[in-house]
């Protein structure tokens, strides 16, 4: 499937995966993340239940401390 991930189009072999799997595949290991799928926020407790499918627009924003 093809999805838009952080403004870039990326192709994956799987037809669908949940957010936890996406983070694993992309090796996104930052602790603090904001995730949006089609402009809707996905909370941490929904990482296993929300699935990404072909054509979705996914944003993974990571935050680090300092200000």
């Amino acid at each position: 499937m093809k999805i838009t991930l952080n403004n870039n189009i990326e192709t994956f072999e799987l037809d669908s995966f949940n957010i936890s799997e996406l983070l694993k595949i992309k090796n996104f290991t930052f602790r603090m993340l904001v995730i949006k799928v089609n402009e809707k926020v996905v909370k941490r407790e929904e990482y296993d239940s929300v699935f990404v499918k072909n054509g979705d627009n996914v944003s993974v924003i990571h935050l680090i401390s300092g200000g």
Partner: protein
Amino acid sequence: MTFNEIKEKLSNKTVGIAGCGGLGSNTAVALARVGIGKLIIADFDVIIESNLNRQYFFFDQIGKKKSFALKENIIRVNPNCIVEAHDILLNKDNIPNIFKNCDIVIEAFDLAEMKQMIIETMLQHYSNIPLIVGSGLAGWGKFEEIAIEKNGNIYICGDRINEVSEQNPPLAPRVGIISNMQANIVLEIFLS
């Protein structure tokens, strides 16, 4: 555009600033200098000496509340800027009310947890209001790593790598760069 035209355009704009530390104090003063009409600033904290390595406060303000001290400093720079100061710990319940009339909101927290909280809260309540976030500003040098990433109405300023730690403290030059990038995006949005 002349500066008078710029000031005219900015004079009816309101910017919310979530946090009055390194990012918030410097962004607020930059925006007051160029003529933003109203700033809504919020912080629960008190100024301590170690803040002075980067935050827009003075030695004789140590011990004062950051929100009120920043209001004083903004008004000393530009008495025409209306400042609404909140001495409050921002959270997902009070943010929607405090920032409801803002044209743009600046994220200026220290902790990543708080940055995440305000992004999620703003997306939930006011996804149409631009939110300008600072992430990755510790240390010194490394100009080439600093960038702006835009994601819908969210702008992330910083290197997104250098987290604050004992060995990688936040310091005036880099914090100043990132906070002024945030202020610069405000101008880009309002003046374009």
